[in-house]
């Protein structure tokens, strides 16, 4: 058994700002109609926005079913971790792609006489994507593009067995759609957290922990809600057990 070491929580890294400069105390007043510098968006307001986003994604998940919804969720999680924790590396990769395009466009497809000189000439202009100030727009755009790509790819490769909405009364279809809705809501949660944390950096929104939306949701869901979700996923798996196939268990 390992020895426990009491550790201080890591200091929160400030997120790159949407419009550059130091974080405003509350970005909400810029949108206020009366022109007064009121308070920033309250936690209930942000929670309502997050909940709305989750609801929309859940509806999409319900229409697409569970077999298609896992991929956007995985993509959203990977994009969240990649962009949130490794943004400089992502920027470097984007700048490499940008340089390649510039090189190709400059030479118009012809091989350069001196490739090293051509590469350095192409890399001379500053990169388009900022690392610190004004990076949030790029981050949101890249995240949205990744999730959208996840949805489009899953539409092609996800083997949905759902019949139309008319046959909603079929238990396997209904469970498939409900699990899809849960996965969709989870995607919406990741997307909402990512976006709102950048739009309202002063709010200090996090994916997990006490400053996260999940903190409140889990409290409200409680143990019965949690066990009901687990039961739904188990039912989905059991209904997915076919009578024919490669491997038969328990016979």
């Amino acid at each position, binding site marked *: 058994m*390992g*020895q*426990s070491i*009491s550790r201080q929580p890591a200091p929160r890294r400030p997120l790159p700002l949407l419009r550059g400069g130091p974080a405003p105390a509350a970005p909400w007043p810029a949108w206020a109609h009366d022109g007064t510098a009121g308070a920033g968006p309250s936690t209930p307001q942000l929670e309502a926005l997050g909940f709305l986003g989750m609801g929309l994604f859940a509806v999409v998940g319900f229409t697409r079913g569970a*077999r298609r919804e896992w991929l956007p969720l995985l993509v959203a999680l990977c994009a969240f971790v990649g962009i949130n924790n490794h943004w400089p590396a992502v920027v470097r990769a984007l700048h490499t792609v940008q340089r390649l395009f510039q090189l190709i466009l400059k030479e118009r497809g012809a091989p350069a006489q001196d490739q090293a000189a051509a590469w350095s000439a192409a890399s001379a202009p500053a990169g388009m994507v900022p690392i610190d100030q004004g990076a949030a727009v790029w981050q949101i755009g890249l995240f949205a593009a990744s999730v959208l790509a996840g949805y489009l790819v899953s539409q092609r490769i996800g083997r949905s067995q759902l019949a139309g909405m008319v046959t909603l009364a079929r238990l396997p279809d209904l469970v498939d759609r409900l699990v899809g809705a849960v996965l969709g809501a989870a995607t919406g949660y990741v997307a909402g957290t990512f976006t709102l944390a950048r739009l309202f950096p002063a709010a200090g929104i996090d994916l997990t922990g006490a400053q996260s939306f999940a903190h409140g949701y889990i409290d409200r869901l409680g143990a019965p809600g949690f066990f009901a979700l687990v*039961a739904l*996923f*188990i039912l989905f798996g059991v209904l997915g057990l076919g009578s024919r*196939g490669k491997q*038969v268990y328990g016979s």
Partner: protein
Amino acid sequence: MIPVEVVFCFLIGVFGLIGTGRKFPVELGATIGFTAMLLSLLLAGDRLSRLSSRAADAAGLGLEESLVRWLGISLFIGLWVGFMYVGQTLTFTGTWPPSRIVGTLLDAAVGLFNGWLVIGSWWHYSHALGYPLRHLGWFEPPVSATAESLVSLTPPAIVPEGHGVLLVTAFLVFLLALRVFR
């Protein structure tokens, strides 16, 4: 030294790997057993640890009381794990997977859920008894804030005090009904 939460989370991850190896229809059978284990732990309350304490007194072991109680609970949980993973166990009939990736995700998920049931319960009782392994020199308090927050998400901690037994019983009946009517 490795923080205690890393050890317990690693062990839960091991269950996830076991689930991936054993596959959903087999692992779900173990879930029935582990839910029954959790129910019996909730029903037993303090009686199990008191029983082990009395047994240690009778045997004249002369160990620290919290350590004896922890050993009793650990033995109980260990036996359940042994029963569920060794020999002929409950399985769900049918073909698996419905699709490769969804199947693998469900395999891992049910394994992680089993890990949460088993390791989470073990962690909860270890925490409640003040980590008796410190008497053997394998652990030194205090635990971190992360461990404190994670231990509040273990099964005995999240089930409500009033109707926790009812909730776990309902979940067990649901699993048994799935097995029977499948």
